[in-house]
């Protein structure tokens, strides 16, 4: 049942709502911002909607802003406080928005009742703020408004029709709604997120369609373009602009005209080209390479990065003016698979359906079904438990609890792309085995007479995950002086054998230094059997670029 928080200094709204909307839960009302903030902090995840009054007859000390010195310094203090009371709801709204930008709030007043016209403009431009339609509250129209807002929030975020998995959590539902709203506007959108989190998918499948722009969706991965070809690729080139430019050709800006241009890995754009892109954002024009005339363009720009653009700006690698033009305030970060463990079971089921629908897996499953008298187009499910009854019109992939845990706990550095590939492999290997051993009919470990349940062998899961598991930290140890010395080292591939041996030597010496508590004589004894060879050891460490000062500092930490 949806929960609604009423922020009102009286019980008027609560009485009315309880009387006319018994189907909703109204949490204990908040009388001022302090109480509202407290309730939201404790129950924020469970609050679906806020009803907020505007006029609060409350003690001055409870009025926002808490620091009123500047306000009271100007003119009549009593009038200032009275004005504050008459518009307190707007101050509360601003404070709520700082922490809960996507929480729907119905400001319980009509446009005409707002203290200033600019307030009305601002509130109506806010995505999650709603004003009453009428001057005087009518419970029926309020109920309609509440139901419409709640229905939007309750609508399942993920459907199999969408190629991006949105999941079932409020956070992802809000993210999807936010992107849908941003898509309709004319401003650029920044999508952040680690590799494989679906940035380009979201741009192509959600933002572009919802932008309702008639032109095409054009995507460019700036990390794959050679720097010297980037300008021509983006802005086009005119014949004769440089040697080899034998004909004029359009760039992606021209091709995306009227549509959406998706620039992936925007951090790879050179500073020079950043300037040109800035012109596109500021003036809607660009100049093809070698051209004298500027071309006009109308495009929605969406950029993606797995870097921190703010940090790039600070490092001087990204123009601040371009960054500001890219609308950083609304940047959206797609969470990694690791961050979406709340959703894991849903996510597993969704991706399973996707990978089973891939051509090869679909064919394998069709063969499996044919061999066992099942319906080939059956719905797919996956889980740790066996469905209670046989159903020839459903295929259930059964994961051993240990396999489920392995998949659940895995770090997935390649995120959804890696996850989908792994599941696809799981399905393929499992089905190939079963189809090729059709004569056996019942797979090992399956429930008796349950061909609708396909167990995924735990060994396939562990075998597939093992190569992707990062090596554990080296367990290095040096034995006591005089005894055998063993050392486990992590040696990455290097450009030469000399570099490899230097890396080995460097790690060995650093470890010895640590174990010898920085005593070079002791190290020399270990290495050369000569306590007086400390100077030689130091020289060698210097040659290898080992900073003794850093080692000492590290030892002291």
């Amino acid at each position, binding site marked *: 049942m949806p929960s609604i928080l009423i922020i009102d*200094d*009286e*019980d*008027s709204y609560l*009485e*009315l709502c309880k*009387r*006319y909307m018994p189907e909703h839960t109204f949490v204990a009302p908040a*009388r001022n911002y302090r109480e509202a903030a407290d309730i939201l902090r404790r129950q924020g995840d469970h609050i679906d909607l806020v009803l907020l009054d505007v*006029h609060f*007859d*409350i*003690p001055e000390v409870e009025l926002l802003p808490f620091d009123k010195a500047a306000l009271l310094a100007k003119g009549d203090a009593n009038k200032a406080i009275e*004005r504050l009371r*008459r518009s307190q709801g707007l101050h509360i709204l601003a404070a709520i928005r700082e922490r809960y930008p996507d929480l729907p709030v119905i400001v319980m*007043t009509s446009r*005409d*009742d707002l*203290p200033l016209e600019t307030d009305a403009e601002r509130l109506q431009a806010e995505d999650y703020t709603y004003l009453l339609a009428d*001057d*005087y*509250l*009518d*419970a*029926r129209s309020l109920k309609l408004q509440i139901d419409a807002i709640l229905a939007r929030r309750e609508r399942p975020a993920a459907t199999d029709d969408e190629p991006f998995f949105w999941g079932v959590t409020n956070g992802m539902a809000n993210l999807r709604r936010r992107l849908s709203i941003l898509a309709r506007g004319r401003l650029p959108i920044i999508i952040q997120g680690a590799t494989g989190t679906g940035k380009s998918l979201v741009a192509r499948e959600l933002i572009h369609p919802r932008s309702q722009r008639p032109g095409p969706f054009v995507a460019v991965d700036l990390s794959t373009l050679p720097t010297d070809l980037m300008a021509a690729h983006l802005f086009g080139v005119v014949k004769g602009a440089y040697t080899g430019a034998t004909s004029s050709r359009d760039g992606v800006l021209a091709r995306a005209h009227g549509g959406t241009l998706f620039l992936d890995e925007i951090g790879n754009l050179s500073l020079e080209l950043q300037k040109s892109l800035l012109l596109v954002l500021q003036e809607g024009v660009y100049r093809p390479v070698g051209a004298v005339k500027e071309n006009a363009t109308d495009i929605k720009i969406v950029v993606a990065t797995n870097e921190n653009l703010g940090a790039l700006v600070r490092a001087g690698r990204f123009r601040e003016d371009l960054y500001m033009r890219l609308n950083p305030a609304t940047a959206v970060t797609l969470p990694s698979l690791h961050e979406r463990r709340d959703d894991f079971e849903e996510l597993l089921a969704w991706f399973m359906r996707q990978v089973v629908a891939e051509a090869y897996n679909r064919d394998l499953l069709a063969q499996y079904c044919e061999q066992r008298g099942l319906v080939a187009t059956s719905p797919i499910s996956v889980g740790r438990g066996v469905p209670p009854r046989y159903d020839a019109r459903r295929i259930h992939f059964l994961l051993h609890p240990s396999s489920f845990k392995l998949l659940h706990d895995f770090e997935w550095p390649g995120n959804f792309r890696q996850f989908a590939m792994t599941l696809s492999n799981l399905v393929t290997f499992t089905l190939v085995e079963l189809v090729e051993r059709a004569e056996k009919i019942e797979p090992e470990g399956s429930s008796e007479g349950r061909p609708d349940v396909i167990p995924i062998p735990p060994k396939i899961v562990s075998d597939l995950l093992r190569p992707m598991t990062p090596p554990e930290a080296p367990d290095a140890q040096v034995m006591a002086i005089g005894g055998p010395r063993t050392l486990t080292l992590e040696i990455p591939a290097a450009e030469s054998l000399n570099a490899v041996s230097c890396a080995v030597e460097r790690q060995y010496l650093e470890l010895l230094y640590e174990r010898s508590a920085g005593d070079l004589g002791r190290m020399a004894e270990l290495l050369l059997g000569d306590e007086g060879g400390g100077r030689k050891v130091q020289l060698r460490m210097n040659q290898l670029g080992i900073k003794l000062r850093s080692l000492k500092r590290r030892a002291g930490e």
Partner: protein
Amino acid sequence: MASEHRDSIDSVDFGRQIAALKHDLGKYVAWMSANLDASCWQGPVRDELIDALGRDLLRTRTPAEGPPESAWELWDRLSATLPRPWTDPELHEVAAAVAVLRRAEPALRARDREALSGQREAVRGAQQKIRGALQQLHRRLLQSEP
């Protein structure tokens, strides 16, 4: 109109006063009763109607501090600060409507169904008049704002 002759500072203050009246009196004078089914206003007087009118007229405003204010007490307090003489006809209409509500006070406090049965139509009309007149005046002031 008379309001056109107010100087701009008075006009802003007057506008705020009317906005407050519209909010405090206009909004709450029919808060619960405006949402009652039409059937509540006909036939035998039901508890539902008495409760709603009691809430709207006897406890029109229930501030966090201090006792609740009835519709006429609220009107007396807020209208006392309005510049006189009143040149806006809506204010006279509101004053007359509030007087109708005030006359229903004894019956409402006593939950006298018979008396209320005779007065309820007038009360309902007065509530609507207060809302409509204050809404109209407020809109007019907004439109005439410099």
